[in-house]
């Protein structure tokens, strides 16, 4: 089924020139000498969901953390631009960032148990952004927190408001995280592997919930995922990352149904589906950050690599409605 089109009829047809909610262009993030993100460009429009997909070490989480301003100078050096509603984030002052974070940009971390503060009740933690960004009174905050808990499917919110995180199951903790991220009706939601620690049945519930809330608020979302099949179902667009670069980006049904970049093709042939009979692993592994190849970073593992791949970095080309960075596209 064409989920992306059903979700948002304009998702595919939006021209690139139209003002994007989030526009990242040529973003480079260095940690000392290591280039962790290398010339990342992407655009996200209102109401769209984008999936960042790749192996560990591809820079997916780093990109998400850079977007929300948790990775900034002097810890890392950022070059290029990240514009959110026209505001440049790379040079934004921390005080202004704080006004965005948890307010216009929400974040769901991977590990809810670690992200929630064990010393405060979940009600207090949901109320925190309501106080900070919306300035609600104590009583209103409590009422709104209960509403939020109800909206993320926590049964008996009035009782659970005073529960501590450890009293809730992993799935319920993840729901609390979602309630916190959505407390101020963000325009952009970042979700870093929101379900990788959960059972498949709970994963389906949580993903359905996030999509449902994102749609209800007409927000956009960026998901960091490692599960390609899940990405195909929850994201309008997919950006496949490898070693700090985006190698293929486009509408999810095209990128995942008929991948063109050899890395995306390799990833797809590793996915265990129900009843798969053969898996073809990609040989080798992501090179360490201090020993990146000069040309295409995927060249050492690529079945299609030729001399030029080792020497020059491929420039992203538009092909079949998507961006692909490869010298030898099929």
């Amino acid at each position, binding site marked *: 089924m064409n989920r992306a089109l059903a979700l948002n009829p304009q998702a595919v047809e939006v021209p690139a020139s139209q003002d994007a909610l989030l526009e990242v262009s040529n973003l480079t993030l260095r940690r000392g000498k290591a280039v962790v993100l290398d010339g990342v460009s992407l655009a996200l429009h209102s109401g769209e969901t984008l999936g960042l997909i790749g192996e560990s070490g591809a820079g997916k989480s780093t990109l998400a953390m850079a977007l929300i301003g948790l990775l900034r100078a002097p810890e890392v050096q950022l070059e290029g631009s990240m514009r959110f509603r026209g505001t440049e984030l790379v040079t934004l002052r921390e005080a202004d960032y704080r006004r965005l974070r948890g307010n216009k940009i929400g974040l769901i971390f991977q590990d809810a148990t670690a992200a929630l503060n064990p010393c405060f009740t979940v009600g207090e933690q949901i109320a925190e952004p309501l106080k900070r960004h919306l300035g609600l009174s104590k009583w209103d905050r409590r009422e709104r927190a209960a509403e939020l808990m109800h909206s993320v499917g926590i049964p008996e919110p009035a009782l659970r408001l005073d529960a501590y995180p450890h009293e809730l199951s992993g799935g319920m903790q993840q729901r609390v995280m979602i309630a916190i991220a959505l407390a101020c009706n963000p325009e952009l939601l970042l979700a870093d592997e929101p379900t990788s620690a959960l059972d498949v049945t709970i994963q389906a519930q949580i993903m359905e919930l996030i999509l449902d809330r994102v749609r209800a608020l007409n927000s956009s979302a960026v998901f960091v995922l490692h599960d390609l*099949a899940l990405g195909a179902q929850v994201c309008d667009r997919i950006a496949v990352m490898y070693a700090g670069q985006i190698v293929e980006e486009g509408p999810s049904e095209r990128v995942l149904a008929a991948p063109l970049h050899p890395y995306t093709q390799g990833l797809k042939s590793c996915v*265990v589906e129900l009843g798969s009979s053969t898996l073809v*692993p990609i040989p080798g592994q992501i090179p360490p950050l201090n020993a990146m190849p000069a040309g295409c970073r995927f060249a050492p593992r690529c079945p299609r690599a030729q001399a030029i791949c080792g020497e020059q970095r491929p420039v992203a080309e538009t092909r079949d409605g998507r961006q692909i960075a490869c010298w030898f596209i099929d």
Partner: protein
Amino acid sequence: MQDPVFSLLDVERSYELRGSGWFNRSSRQLKALDGVRLELQRGDTLALVGESGSGKSTLIRLMLGLEPASDGRVLYGQRDLAQLDAAERKRFACEVAFIYQNARGSMNPRMRIADILAEPIRLHGLCAEHDIPARVAALLDRVGLPAGLLQRFPGELSGGQVRRVAIARALAAEPEVIMADESVAGLDVSVQAQVLNLLRDLCRESGITLVFITHDLGVASYLCDKIAVLYLGRIVEQGPTDAILNTPRHPYTRALLQAFPRFDVPLKASLSGEIPSPVNLPQGCRFAGRCPQVQTACRATDPSLTALEADRQVACLFPVTAA
């Protein structure tokens, strides 16, 4: 027909939970496993599938003799695991290997890979001391790792390499049975594919009997010929992999299959709610509280595992029809 390698006869495992306060000394029972019947033939590859809290790991711990059964019997061949003497116990440890969920945590960080792999060989006296290095090198080669890793420490290896070393260590004593607890969880897809292919080749080549715990039905179907689905300490359905995938008869199995993300089927939350606490088990069918097709009878009668077809068993009063 040959004798089964393992037979579990109505195995139960419960834990006593004591009240914590001075005035609250009442104790409650947590039933992790209840009435599990299972037979494992030589050369079988069996996947134990279920959500967290379904009792998969407890079951494997009982089969390894790490915990006694509270009731029922765990037989290894003809012998009851609880009655093995020291010598039999040692032989059992040699014949049945375990791959821990946390591969890195299961290795001594101060031992080199060569010593980690040599330990079981030395312990069971499987070959002369001067032959050990060659045997260790062969093991490492068998799991596709370069010999250069022998002098490294576990901390210097990547996640995928550590899992391979764990597999090599399990193979060190040339076991007949390997039990593995979530051995590919949390790996990247490309590394997961490598480890899965390795395990599958090993089982096919050497006829090792494999018991594999996983929450991922895709992994279960790739690796194993048989699947047993657990829910709240009970096996609710078991049978050949193809049959389970194509015609799930228990509503829980069907819900698990529906929640599995696929490229061509929209994601659907097939089950509401979460697995209930094993402390206060519901009366009647344990799955009744979440079952999409629950009927009145389900809340009163606890269904037992009954054979539907030759090698197919389901614990449900109203099994899903095959169509």
